[in-house]
């Protein structure tokens, strides 16, 4: 896929220095140091329980590191007022669950929250924005339906629409397409990729599917047991050696002319 147009902006988005985190006595991340820069679509990959979602929650400020420091745009993450952070970072969670039967439009409008005054109603411009994100995510016809009655895939598109309505600098995806069929996955990823290339919206995505990650991301970060095992541009990082080290499977990585990116096939090791 094409590179984003604006590469000149090389300020760091995040810098993590020896960040550790655990739940209770169980360590999840151990001394992770990372630099995330604008201009690349980042993919965070790794086996179950390797700390991918925890890393994302640390980046979004939902969790506080137990040791180490996190800076966002050159400023300690936790010195950012929540509202200002919410104007810059939007999250699409894995399972978007909504209690109570809010209409799809109401849920998408919640994305305006960090930009609106407490008692302000959405302006005409805001309404146009909502119409647009409903259209690009293909849920205009569902706008008046209660979100509790949608299918899993439809709900996930509502979550993406809401994150887009938030007009973030950076979009954080937590396995946002894991529960979608391949058609809807590709549609959503392509839509996000377009925003990245045309409007410079940065993307950090936790992903499960290596082939989708190869299609979607410019830069991959592999986690295993709470540590960064390997990271780099997709073409360099996605190798049989990395996959064997991270997932413990044998893999073949081949450039694919059909999808125009590297594709992976796997099998379990024959003689362990």
């Amino acid at each position: 896929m094409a590179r984003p147009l604006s590469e000149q902006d090389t300020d760091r988005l995040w810098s993590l220095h020896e960040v550790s985190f655990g739940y209770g006595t169980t360590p999840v991340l151990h001394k992770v140091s990372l630099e995330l820069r604008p201009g690349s679509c980042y993919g965070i990959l790794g086996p179950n329980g390797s700390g991918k979602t925890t890393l994302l929650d640390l980046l979004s400020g939902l969790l506080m590191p137990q040791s180490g420091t996190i800076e966002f745009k050159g400023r300690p993450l936790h010195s950012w007022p929540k509202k200002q952070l919410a104007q810059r970072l939007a999250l699409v969670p894995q399972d978007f669950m909504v209690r109570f039967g809010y209409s799809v439009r109401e849920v998408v409008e919640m994305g305006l929250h960090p930009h609106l005054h407490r008692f302000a109603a959405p302006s005409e411009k805001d309404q146009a924005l909502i119409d647009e994100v409903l259209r690009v995510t293909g849920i205009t016809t569902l706008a008046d339906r209660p979100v509790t009655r949608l299918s899993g895939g439809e709900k996930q598109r509502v979550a993406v629409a809401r994150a887009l309505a938030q007009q973030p600098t950076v979009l954080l995806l937590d396995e946002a397409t894991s529960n979608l069929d391949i058609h809807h996955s590709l549609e959503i990823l392509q839509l996000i990729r377009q925003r990245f290339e045309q409007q410079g919206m940065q993307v950090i995505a936790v992903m499960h599917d290596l082939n989708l990650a190869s299609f979607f991301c410019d830069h991959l970060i592999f986690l295993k047991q709470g540590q960064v095992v390997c990271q780099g541009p997709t073409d360099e990082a996605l190798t049989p050696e990395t996959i064997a080290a991270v997932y413990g499977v044998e893999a073949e990585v081949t450039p694919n002319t059909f999808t125009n990116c590297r594709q992976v096939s796997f099998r379990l090791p024959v003689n362990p």
Partner: protein
Amino acid sequence: MNDRSASTTLLQLTAVLVCAVALAATLGFLKVSIPDVLSILFARLTQQPLPAGIDPIAATVVADIRMPRILAAVLVGGMLGVSGAIFQAILLNPLADSYTLGISTGAAFGASLVIVLQIFGLVLPPVVSVPIFAFGGAIGTLALVLYLASGDRRLSSTSLILAGVIVAAILSAAIGFLKFLADEQVGIIIFWLMGSLSGASWQNILLLTPTALLGVLVALFYSRDLNIMATGDRAATSLGVHTVRLRTTLLTTGTLLTALAVSVSGIIGFVGLIVPHMLRHMVGPDNRRLIPLSFFTGGLLLLFADTLTRAILPVEVPIGVLTALLGGPFFCILFKKRQKDGTTAF
């Protein structure tokens, strides 16, 4: 809902409420006509002498006995309705109310404790009164529940409900023990636990009005944040909502509303549960509408129930019993209807 239609609806509801209050004031053992009620109230408010042709006894009954009771019914009902809406939104549970976290049970325990002490003939200082202990019991229970749930730093609804259920179970057992101790005089406790507005005074109204107003305003102030809470903690935090602070603030508000209502009226169940629940089906779950509507509907419902038991039924049925007897079957019908429509998801 735009501002204009919102204020129109609010005006209409206020008008309905005023009419209902005036109508309720005419009913009772002594029948008074609506114009007479209005002139009595007008005379009282403006400190004018009563117009000729109005029975001074009727004036006393309407102004000093009926009006405080009627206003107390409206305020208590409204406060219970709003607190129910708050608890349901915070606990992400459409069937939550002040019982879910043991708040009402705590109030009942506080009241029962004082009653038992009085039965045993202890001379208590005037500060140790049933309303104050009911109030303290509710606040103390919230503090205990928050303490128990605070091990989970996010103060999730699951931890809160679990802590609430445990505390409520202990308090229920303790109330049972107090009833056992009260022995033959257990009737006093039972009467209080079933609720009554018959003792309402103008002093109560002076206490209830600012609290009700404050509670509704705080809930309205946070109503958009409350809506966002319905999409889960992670999503809410990423939209800039301070989830823990919001929960603590609104649980305290809901508890204050319940505690004060209960200290005036005794335990009245079902209003807090059914009013916001029913409204959610009618106008949708948006708390910006739900909270003010819960106040008006709760107030009207309790006024209706109290007028029924005060003026229409041959015997005065405890109001807590009446609300459950009226609300329960209604709830069953709603529940069955929802199942038939193919939506069991409440």
